[in-house]
């Protein structure tokens, strides 16, 4: 029962994202036979070192979506304070409410069923532009972002070129 609710909702979101796609985002299930695994392409926001890049990510939805948030993981090399070295994305919208003992994040920023895949992807896009320094997932990247911005931007730009096979 819960699974069919989740499937319906995901199918609906897929449809919305196809007919009215936000700028710089392409997302959909890997196969419609399994609506719980999606692949998304996010383009790097303008006026950032990520500009021009395309960043692929996998989203895996729980069976009780939209009650619980999906997990998202970049499937490319990405150098960012809020992305774990294994690609997992650490962002408040992907955290269920009541899960943050440190209370870094406001409840309104966290996951709730009124959020959507589109909102997640847009949030991730703005996260690329503005890293959140408070709880870094990649400590080395965070330190470099703070202390050696030039080097950070150079690594990011290199990643953009490599990702596009240049």
């Amino acid at each position, binding site marked *: 029962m819960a699974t069919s609710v989740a499937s319906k909702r995901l199918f609906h979101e897929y449809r919305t994202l196809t007919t009215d796609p936000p700028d710089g985002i392409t997302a959909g299930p890997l196969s419609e036979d399994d609506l719980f695994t999606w692949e998304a392409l996010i383009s790097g926001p303008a006026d950032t070192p990520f500009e021009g890049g395309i960043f692929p990510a996998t989203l895996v939805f729980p069976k009780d979506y939209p009650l619980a948030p999906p997990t998202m993981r970049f499937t490319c090399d990405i150098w960012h304070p809020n992305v774990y070295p294994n690609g997992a994305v650490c962002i408040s919208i992907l955290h269920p409410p009541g899960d943050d003992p440190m209370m870094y994040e406001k409840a309104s920023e966290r996951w709730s069923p009124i959020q959507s895949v589109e909102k997640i992807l847009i949030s991730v896009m703005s996260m690329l532009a503005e890293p959140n320094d408070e709880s870094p997932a990649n400590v080395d990247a965070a330190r470099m972002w703070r202390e050696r911005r030039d080097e950070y931007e150079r690594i990011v730009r290199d990643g953009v070129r490599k990702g*596009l*096979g*240049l």
Partner: protein
Amino acid sequence: MSNGEIPATTLNIPQLLLVLVLGFLAVRWYLSGPPSSASSSRSSSRTPRIDYARVDQVAQMFPQADRRAIIWDMQRNGGNVAATTERILSRGLDVPPPSFQPPLPPQATPSGGAGARANAKTPAHPDLITRYNLSSKITPTGSSPLVDSGSDTSTPASTPSKPSWSTNKTERALQLQRRREEMILEARRKLEEKERAKTAVDKGKGKA
């Protein structure tokens, strides 16, 4: 006379039957004993059984994850695909101890090449061109975007700019694939142009 009958009655027919039945059961027990004990010891061998179908399932979802790490994780959580998936996504798998050498499944031999390559520290993520097999669709540098969009319409009746929702499942999958490819190729083209412009500027600076 009566004395002579006593030895005969010490072994009467019911007793004889009882001995036969007990003997039969003893033989049965002896014969069936060894195989059953062997099978039970096999199933309760110390290393838990690994379901390679499940390992494959996870490995296909996350080609970059180390197979040994997947087996290690699944062995510890009792073969739970969802839990392993969750762990890969949330914080990555633990590195198994070097002593952990899972037996390789027999059906993995055809894909042994891929497994060996994954182990051999190649870059974890191929670029998007390789990944989506787009090398044939890259237009040579210097071609105008007009020509490119013309060659893009290899599939007829596609209006790239106008998103539509097909009622056909396979058509939808194709549309999504096409949008993905367009996005990647477009980004690559723009970046190439930008770099060409930049090198031109640099050259100009050099001359000046």
